[in-house]
């Protein structure tokens, strides 16, 4: 595998693991950052599908050879989608912060309440 290809593989691995780690954190800001990293990871793996990634796109090199445009088109679409949704997530995280004055992911209150329903019976 060529050097740029290997570099991409390492980058993808780091982005996926970092992204999932952040996704599992309590702070909403970290969750959003995790999503951003995961989005980059997926887009880079789309790039990885092209073995000739080092070739220029569209206009061609000396022999007129070009890299595969399809993964790039797909990555472009995916970037637009992840970008849009990330903005939305940020807006939501801001609303959570406005409401609660912190950006922690709260416990599931309904579950807690249903868990407590059993307690009076136990104690009596």
């Amino acid at each position, binding site marked *: 595998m060529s050097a740029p290809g290997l570099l991409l593989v390492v980058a993808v691995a780091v982005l996926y693991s970092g992204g999932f780690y952040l996704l599992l954190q309590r702070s909403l800001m970290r969750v959003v950052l995790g999503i951003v990293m995961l989005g980059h990871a997926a887009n880079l793996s789309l790039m990885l*599908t092209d073995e000739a990634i080092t070739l220029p796109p569209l206009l061609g090199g000396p022999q007129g050879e070009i890299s595969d445009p399809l993964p790039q088109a797909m990555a472009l679409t995916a970037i637009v989608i992840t970008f849009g949704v990330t903005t939305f997530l940020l807006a939501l995280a801001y609303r959570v912060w406005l409401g609660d004055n912190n950006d922690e992911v709260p416990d599931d209150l309904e579950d807690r309440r249903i868990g407590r329903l059993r307690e009076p019976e136990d104690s009596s």
Partner: protein
Amino acid sequence: MNLMIAVPFVVPLLGAALALLLRRSPRAQRVSSAVTLAVVVAGATLLLDTTAGGAVAVTQAGGWDAPLGITLVVDPLSALLLLVSSVVLLLVLLYAVGQDISGLSRAMPQVFHPIYLVLTAGVCLSFMAGDLFNLFVGFEIMLTASYALITQALTRERVRASMIYTVVSLTSSILFLTGIALVYALTGTVNLADVAEKLGGAPPELRAVLALLFLVVFGIKAAIVPMHFWLPDSYPVAITRISAIFAALLTKVAVYAIIRTQTLLFAGDDISSVMLWIAIATMVVGILGALVQDDINRIMSFVLVSHIGFMIFGLALNTVAGIAGVLYYLVHHIVVQATMFLVNGLVRQYVGHTSLRSIRGLTAVSPVLALFFFLPALSLAGMPPMSGFVAKVALFEAGAQAGGWLVWTALVAGVLTSLLTLMAIFRVWVRAFWGTPLPDMLEARAELRRGPDVAGRRVMAVTTGAMVGAGIAVTVGAGPLLEIAFTAAEDLLDGDAYIEAVMEGAT
């Protein structure tokens, strides 16, 4: 080029643009949205007619031929789901219009109408997409619309729920994208028919990995155990019309995607034992969750999770009878689940919430409401002669034919789940519908009767009644529906008709 196929996708998008333009005049907006969805229903009916007998209709949007162009495919399965979904979408829209007229909802109609139609377009595109990337785009259109819809009438609770919902859906979308990248690296194409042909030569281990990855991707969206935690946290919190349409359609679109990918792309791979275990876990965990909840909407959400298990079970059998059973189950479940949530919305009129702790004697407050709850609830629990019973019998029969200890274990789990569903439903029935009504419920009824918003409430009641009627139609029409389901299932397991129809222009 067959223009008819594009109707269920293009018309709602145009309708959404129109609804946006008409936002200053609510009445025109309502009419245009309803007409748009009626056109989609008509288009879907025609498509179902074209695909009768197992024909596959294909159009290459943009004029590029199959492996490169954007392929839209309608086979009997897609056509059936398009029709059922569009009917449910139309009825829920009318219900929402009723709510808006009566002023019972805090949702903003000028926002709701355009986004709802975009959601419709996304759902329809997902059913028709002929390549993986387009399926991804269809999913994204649907999900992005759903992110906006779930935040309607925003409260603190809803902010929290939509955060969970968005993050989980987005994670699954990103995994989907990864799956697409892997498939493209392996085969050099994303066209479903082309991938199906080229995957045949790939190493079986790689194909098994891809099959499992796609099962996880769509499994998150279909809320199969152990990836179901987000659903009962987010769906019940949204406003009635939204939770109705989410519960009815979004998980089912994911189930459709599982059916499509597993039968077409990974036909030769045997992950059926994994799927059977998943089915057992989904059925049992879901229904046990339903038994301890005390909010009707949350109970229904857990029942929804549990019944996804039945669909996975039928698919895992990998026989014509099994898949036909799943397809009928899908149709039944889309209609019945939407009805249950609409009925819960009607309950909310009297008490302002759906918590079992302070609802008593709804039968005395509104006998019609009790009937509207009772019929779909029996169907959901699989009591004869309702459609749920027909669907379950079809699935169990297919299971008994397939045999094997794991299948029998799943069958026992399925019967157990049916009984426990009945128990969950009767818990709701006994606690909410029997007994003497609470005084404030009678007051609420008196106030509603005096209120100036009777027309809107009548629309809500009539559309809920129509949904109950649609549920009964699914029961009465079980014969022809199962016939379509069998044709579709044969098509799915064969696969050649689909591949040939798509690749025709390519050579």
